[in-house]
């Protein structure tokens, strides 16, 4: 079974964090959509060749953040991004935005350059 999101591990970053990020990216880019079934812990573990306890933790994190929902008898599905996660999302955005601004200013980029780059990625992901 193929996973519905792309995963290429990078050195230096915890596996748990990388997979959670990859799933978020796939949701944002609508590679996986609300209502889609999400791989089981077993499938995640087998396909990514990761520890089943780590796979379990990843699914737990995604459920806690409201990105996945458990449907008894069906399994785990991609959630509808409920309002409750808006706060979390804006928090995430704040952090990421700060990071981006800092990086950009370090490189002496103009605000326009940054906005251009953001726009490009925005369109690329199909938002």
């Amino acid at each position, binding site marked *: 079974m193929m996973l519905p999101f792309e995963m290429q591990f990078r050195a*230096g*970053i*915890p*596996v748990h964090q990388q997979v959670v990020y990859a799933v978020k990216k796939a949701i944002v880019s609508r590679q996986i959509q609300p209502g889609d079934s999400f791989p089981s812990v077993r499938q995640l*573990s087998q396909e*990514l*060749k990761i520890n089943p*306890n*780590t796979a379990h*933790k990843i699914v737990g994190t995604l459920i806690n953040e409201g990105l996945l929902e458990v449907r008894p008898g069906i399994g785990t599905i991609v959630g509808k991004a409920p309002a409750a996660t808006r706060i979390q999302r804006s928090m995430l955005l704040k952090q990421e935005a700060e990071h981006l601004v800092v990086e950009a200013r370090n490189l002496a980029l103009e605000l326009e350059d940054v906005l251009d780059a953001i726009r490009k990625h925005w369109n690329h992901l199909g938002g």
Partner: protein
Amino acid sequence: MSADQDRIHSIETEGLTRSFGRTEAVIDLTLAVPRGSIFAFLGPNGAGKTTTIKMLMNILRPSAGKATVFGVDSSRLGPEEFRQIGYVSENQDTIDWMTVEQLIAYCKPMYPTWDDALCGSLLRQFDLPPDQKIKNLSRGMRMKAMLLSSLAYRPRLLVLDEPFTGLDALVRDELVRGILELTQQEQWTVFISSHDVDELEGLADWIAVVNKGRLQLSESLASLQSRFRSVQVVVEGDEGLPPARPAEWMLPEKAGHTLRFVHSRYREGSEDQIRAMVPQSGRITAHPMSLRSIFVALARTYRISE
């Protein structure tokens, strides 16, 4: 079955020691391997990993201390326990002249829990040629054949001594998939030794590090990853490293206006600690670390402090 089904640890050692003449290969080793974990037993070649495993598997007697497997003293492990243990080692005697098919036929009657369906699916998954003699197989194929004959009876404990050494990434992935099959059943524990942490990234969730026969560390990956952070501090002004630093700041270095170190006890309030130590701190970032980067930091610290 017996009460050992409820045991928290599949393996426990206490003061385990083994000497060969005057050489101490394993010294006062005390560790516990939690059931349901993939336990990485890491250390450089010659650190005492294989000697430890041989004591666990009742191949060598300890000079002092003891080990238990499923609560049974390792020196008393017999057929009943070994029916529930899968053990794969490079320097194991294999029956070289057998074909893969013959090996399977030979192993099957020894294990009441032998699972033909799993055996068949592993045979396909591993792409093993049934009619080839073991001695004519490549190193990777040979390892796959040995792992198959240890997985097919669904052991409750799998002990692998350097299973990935000298194998390419593709074979490693196949072996990992095979190992992960085991984690689908109710009772399982995997104990893997390796000299190369990269082989176990993502796979291990418990880490023990052994060096020169002594245990340096034994901890869950979750615990390690919650306390280790790669920290960068932007420092205004030209001060060097703060002269008195907490021991938990590992490998501190300063280049330009950046102070960089690995914090081995990061927690809430650590930023305040840093600002107190380095009054001119500007932006502080603390990133979680992969198993590999934690291992490298530990290895470098041990070497420096030796």
